[in-house]
């Protein structure tokens, strides 16, 4: 990506003074991947027992645990502080096998996936004669050496490409760089839905390994070509796998990882997931980080008509789409999943059978029929999350 002019800077910098600098390294937001340094983990820093039926987001934001088939393995996923030395990273994503499945069934598999919005990918010009190559770079470590697969899947046009990398030395951080050719077939939708899936494969049954690895773009109906050669990280409880510094950028060369300030990185993650808790507090019934004068203050109840209270909340960041809301109790009451209000008798009471109205990507409204006096406001206790993940 060439920089042709930056305001009037071109008139004030001496000739040739920046000629040898790495301009590509100062271009912001070159990384298609969000939270590639694994620094944001709003949901928590550890999740145990991940296996069959646990597809979803558990620790590091934007990184999805993806199981396929009906596997018997289980993993603990962690936001780890084990990082490559001297590279500037503070966190990694760790997958630790806790229940082994040494012989995966044909349809079983496990990947770590990031889904990417189509409207953020128009500049890769996929499906045109000018389709850009994509280069992925990352740091990885595992006790299990051998061949691993990275796959990019075009979800709009059912196409895929896979590349392998090798972990050469056990339990040693290694930097890998892989380039994927541009695809002149299949334009990506310019919308807020998932157009590309980016997958780190960790294990795969023969449904995904019995063909020839799809090192060029092809129809993804050919699952057998997806993960040929992939080792099975689930074959022993001694196995673990770490990754950080994941960057996917246009071009055929990798540039230095683009570190973003934590507030900027968080802003990007908030488009997909937000919570009424501090950054380091995992949402849960009974979590206690918020106070009446803090985050909960914006969510006080109003009795808008006799014996009906409501509370409107505006998100910090507009969501990708209308999000799913989950409610949590605070500490004053004991009913899971239900917030409370401080009633006319000076006592906390559960808000039973709430109705949630969430009609857009900007906020939501919660209301409930309780004993309350019209025109009064009431303290709110509880928490919520809003998820608009892909």
């Amino acid at each position: 990506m060439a920089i042709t002019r930056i305001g009037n800077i071109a008139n004030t910098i001496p000739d040739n003074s920046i000629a040898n600098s790495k301009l590509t390294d100062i271009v912001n937001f070159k990384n298609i991947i969000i939270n590639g340094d694994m620094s944001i983990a709003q949901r928590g820093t550890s999740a145990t027992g991940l296996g069959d039926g646990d597809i979803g987001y558990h620790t590091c934001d934007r990184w999805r645990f993806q199981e396929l088939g009906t596997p018997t393995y289980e993993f603990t996923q962690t936001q780890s502080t084990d990082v490559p030395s001297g590279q500037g990273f503070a966190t990694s994503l760790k997958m630790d096998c806790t229940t082994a499945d040494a012989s995966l069934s044909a349809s079983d598999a496990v990947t770590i996936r990031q889904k990417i919005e189509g409207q953020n990918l128009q500049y890769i010009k996929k499906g045109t004669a000018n389709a850009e190559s994509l280069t992925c770079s990352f740091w990885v470590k595992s006790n299990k050496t051998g061949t691993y697969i990275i796959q990019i899947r075009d979800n709009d046009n059912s196409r895929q490409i896979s590349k392998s990398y090798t972990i050469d030395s056990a339990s040693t951080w290694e930097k890998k760089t892989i380039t994927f050719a541009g695809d002149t077939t299949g334009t990506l939708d310019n919308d807020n839905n998932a157009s590309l899936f980016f997958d780190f494969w960790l294990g795969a049954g023969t449904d995904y390994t019995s063909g020839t690895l799809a090192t060029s773009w092809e129809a993804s109906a050919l699952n057998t070509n997806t993960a040929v050669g992939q080792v099975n990280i689930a074959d022993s409880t001694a196995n673990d796998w770490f990754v950080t510094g994941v960057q996917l950028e246009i071009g055929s060369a990798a540039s230095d990882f683009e570190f973003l300030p934590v507030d900027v990185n968080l802003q990007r993650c908030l488009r997909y997931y937000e919570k009424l808790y501090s950054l380091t507090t995992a949402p849960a019934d009974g979590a206690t980080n918020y106070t009446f004068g803090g985050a909960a203050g914006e969510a006080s109840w109003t009795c808008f008509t006799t014996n009906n209270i409501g509370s409107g909340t505006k998100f910090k960041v507009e969501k990708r789409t209308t999000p799913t809301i989950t409610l949590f109790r605070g500490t004053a009451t004991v009913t899971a999943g239900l917030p409370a209000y401080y009633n006319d008798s000076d006592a906390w009471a559960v808000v039973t059978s709430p109705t949630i109205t969430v009609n857009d990507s900007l906020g939501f409204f919660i209301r409930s029929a309780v004993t309350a006096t019209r025109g009064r406001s009431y303290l709110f206790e509880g928490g919520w999350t809003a998820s608009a993940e892909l």
Partner: protein
Amino acid sequence: MIKNVEKMYSLTSPIVFVKTFKVTLNNDAVIYVPLDPANTDYQAIQEWIAAGNEVIDNGA
């Protein structure tokens, strides 16, 4: 994994469907899912319905 899905209605007149579903998962956790085709949980509801399940509708 979805256990059941219920349409949510407003509590006061006029009683209308508020375009949100109360979804109880197999672990008894409850989530509130908007009627939004771009929401992946709503997409999961559609798959759940396509598999032969029915949404609870207590009506207006």
